[in-house]
């Protein structure tokens, strides 16, 4: 019987067909599996990118919130101190501002300490035997914007003059070499 089956061409053809179908089916399922794997990988990457973006956005918001809180704390602290300490706080805040809005906000707050935005600022570059050498005088508004643009440490406050309402009418700074 076995010999009959083995010798039958029909049987051989049938067996070959079964083998081919089995192999073909296997390839299709492998391709499907690869596609599914790629899709899963893509989805994973997209999820990771979205998570990274979200994290960066959260970090940025956190940084801004911290900066704003520090600024408020500095302003609150400065309020407890005298005008010179307040002004020093504003100088530092403007020089160290990481963004334009924050710097402009500090400039506007600082200007409220002055009788006018044109309040003169004298900068001593050298002093010897009671004789002072000055840089070209400027105004407080220009000086505050100068700090914002140059992002450099402000000159040391040497003297402040006030009007009757406690507003600053003149600033003398001393350049630190």
């Amino acid at each position, binding site marked *: 019987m076995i010999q009959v089956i083995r010798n039958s061409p029909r049987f051989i053809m049938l067996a070959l067909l079964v083998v081919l179908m089995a192999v073909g089916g296997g390839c299709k399922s492998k391709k499907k599996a690869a596609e599914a794997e790629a899709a899963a990988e893509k989805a994973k990457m997209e999820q990771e990118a979205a998570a990274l973006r979200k994290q960066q956005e959260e970090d940025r918001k956190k940084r801004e919130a911290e900066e704003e809180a520090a600024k408020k704390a500095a302003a609150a602290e400065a309020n407890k101190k005298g005008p010179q300490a307040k002004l020093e706080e504003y100088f530092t805040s403007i020089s160290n501002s990481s963004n334009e809005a924050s710097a402009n906000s500090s400039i506007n707050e600082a200007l409220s300490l002055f009788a006018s935005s044109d309040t003169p600022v004298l900068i001593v570059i050298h002093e010897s035997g009671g004789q002072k*050498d000055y*840089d070209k*005088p400027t105004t407080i508004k220009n000086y505050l914007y100068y700090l914002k643009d140059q992002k450099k440490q402000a000159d040391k406050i040497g003297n402040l003059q006030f009007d009757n309402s406690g507003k600053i009418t003149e600033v003398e700074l001393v350049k630190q070499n």
Partner: protein
Amino acid sequence: MLNYKFLSALSVGLCVVSLSMAQNPEISPARKQAIDSLALEKVRDLSKYISIIGNKKTPFSEATRVMDRAEELFAPDSEMGVSSLNRKEINYYKVRKYFERLMALNYDKVTISWYDIHYISDLERQPDGRYVGVVTIYQRFEGTSDDGLKYKDTTKKDITIYVEKKKTQIQGRTIEFWDVMLGDIRVSETSA
């Protein structure tokens, strides 16, 4: 007779000394150092202003405000030299025009930095009472377009510095100050 000769010699000597002091009044080394430093600081300030004006992220209104401040550093009619690796000649523009051209450069990203800022000619008192010196700087320029095109060069520039003692009235008081002004900025070398 001896006394007469001595007094004559002394009076001639005093005249010479007072004339020479009038022409070149003494400035102590510390005071001179402070003026030198002030002038260098103005050059560094200009460097920062130029990088802000050139930066494509700077809003137009900010760039205009900074241009005004930068222009104040210069003596009237001062010119800025501009060179390129792509041409031999050096073009000179009034500083305001230079800033406006810098702001309008056709790149998507521009970075400009100045370094190695130093005097090549010390501030020296001139017969008109002004002090004049020359400061050299190196400027690194990089302009990049979104399509990947990039131009970069390094330029050595010489800046004439003028320092003059002036007076002004502040709240009814006369204040003497040192006015530092930048003059022409001339290109002396350009390399890749």
